[in-house]
């Protein structure tokens, strides 16, 4: 099997549709380890990758005014059991454009894999960027994932991202996104993870609402079982008049797992309004017993409830 086929197979296992990566009509980027196996550009979208020692630096430029009808598909993977992968993307989403990115990160055989992502994202005036990232890590728990992003949203821009690591082991996750939002801009961050074994989850979401009427939502849905741990820090700052933000965190804990939530809310303008809710607890007893009264055993019922919470 070629490297390209191997990574496509892993991509499929992590929930991706490989046809998107083969189609010339779809913007795509395929990276295995530190090698670029495919980069497809479409009108209005430039993808400029450069291989570096342990990974790839890449510029993704969406020209102003571009409307991307089909999402761009990105695939990052490490097939061997060991390795380091550094992805350094720079996204430039031009004014008035609209683009969606669907990324799959797959480390199916990982025993000792480190995946670092340091993204810089600029969403131009009145531009919209949607970014979804789904991970699949295999069952060994030998992955360390460090996704970091610094996002700037210009006036009237809209940035939303959803990060999901809910199938296979998490390993160690250290997620840290910071978004600065200008007037009338919107930022929505969603992070979902399901840890078990001795997985360790850390999620930091920071949204700074710096312009008038900027809006932000920092949402997280985390479940931990066995000896897994999770720590969620959702921070929102209302720094300008009429900025509105909300931090929404739910963590479900089972067995000997430990969960922490630290919502941070700062308001620097008395016309800004920021709220937070955090709920940490075990699976609701009534929900559990309801599913059991339909014949599900306790384990399955817990899983159905957690999967639902992660899907919600």
């Amino acid at each position, binding site marked *: 099997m070629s490297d390209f086929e191997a990574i496509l197979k892993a991509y499929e296992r992590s929930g991706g549709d490989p046809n998107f990566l083969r189609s010339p009509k779809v913007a795509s980027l395929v990276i295995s380890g530190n090698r670029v196996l495919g980069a497809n550009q479409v009108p209005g979208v430039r993808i400029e990758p450069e291989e570096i020692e342990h990974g790839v630096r890449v510029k993704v430029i969406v020209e102003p005014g571009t409307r991307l009808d089909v999402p761009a598909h990105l695939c990052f993977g490490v097939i061997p059991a060991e390795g380091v992968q550094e992805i350094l993307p720079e996204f430039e989403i031009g004014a008035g454009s609209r683009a969606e990115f669907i990324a799959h990160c797959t480390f199916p055989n990982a025993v000792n894999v480190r995946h670092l992502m340091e993204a810089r994202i600029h969403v131009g005036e009145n531009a919209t960027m949607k970014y979804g990232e789904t991970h699949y890590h295999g069952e060994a728990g030998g992955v360390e994932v460090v996704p970091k992003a610094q996002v700037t949203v210009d006036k009237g821009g809209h940035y939303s991202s959803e990060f999901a690591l809910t199938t296979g082991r998490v390993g160690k996750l250290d997620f840290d996104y910071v978004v600065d939002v200008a007037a009338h801009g919107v930022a929505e961050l969603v992070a979902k993870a399901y840890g078990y074994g001795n997985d360790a989850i850390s999620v930091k979401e920071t949204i700074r609402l710096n312009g008038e009427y900027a809006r932000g939502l920092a949402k997280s849905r985390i479940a931990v079982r066995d000896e897994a741990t999770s720590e969620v820090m959702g921070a929102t700052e209302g720094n300008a008049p009429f900025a509105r933000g909300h931090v929404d965190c739910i963590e479900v804990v089972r067995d000997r797992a430990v969960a922490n939530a630290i919502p941070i809310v700062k308001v620097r303008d008395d016309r800004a309004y920021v709220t937070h809710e955090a709920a940490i607890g075990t699976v609701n007893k009534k929900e559990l*017993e309801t599913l059991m009264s*339909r014949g599900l055993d306790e384990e399955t019922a817990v899983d159905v409830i957690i999967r639902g919470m992660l899907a*919600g």
Partner: protein
Amino acid sequence: MEFLLKTEDLHLERNGQKILRGVNMGIAPGQVYGLLGRNGSGKSTLAYTLMGCTEYTPDRGRIIFAGQDITTLSITERARLGLTLAWQNPAHFEGLKVKDYLTLGMKDPSLERLEQALSAVALSPSAYLERTVNDALSSGERKRIELAAVYAMRPRLAILDEPDSGIDVLSLDDIARLIRRMAAEGTTVLLITHRDEMVPVADVAALMCEGEILRVGEPQTVREHYARRCRPCEVATLVEAPGGVYERL
């Protein structure tokens, strides 16, 4: 008579309060058994005890289902024997679709059965199958979905805890129709209610008061007794009967 469900002298105390005080009941296979009682008489507690919920293990007595002593079985084990409960105030589930919720308990899931179950509770399948069983549903919609889930499961015994109470619930006629459909498919029904208008649906009725079953018999007779003699259970164990004398019901 061979009962499908029989309880013998069930007692249950919660937080120092005696809630079930020796419940003896027998439900014959195929029967619709109407359990009538004022709020607070212990009906839901009995339902949870029959279903095997945690902290509802009887202090005394036995529960026999289809000839088997199920008093110490788990909820799951009871459900797998064919016993289920439509909860009075059903739980909401974030992220769980109606179609998946209904499918959970079905032995041979099919789209046809899902649609049939929703139609049976007067909900349009096309509008509800893809919805989520979360708190965006009204309490009445949620209760209908609960009944649909129980119907879809084709249990041997369905405990329906107050299917008729609340806002936007099924009409009495629709509940009666649903219960007849369940019975026609071989489900025995324990219908719990505090509304005496519901009683004519039943083949046999029982009156519950203060954690005891005081009267069992013809639905009409029990209904009349309840309507005439039974006051809301505010007056502890004694009820003032017409004529000024205090008597136990």
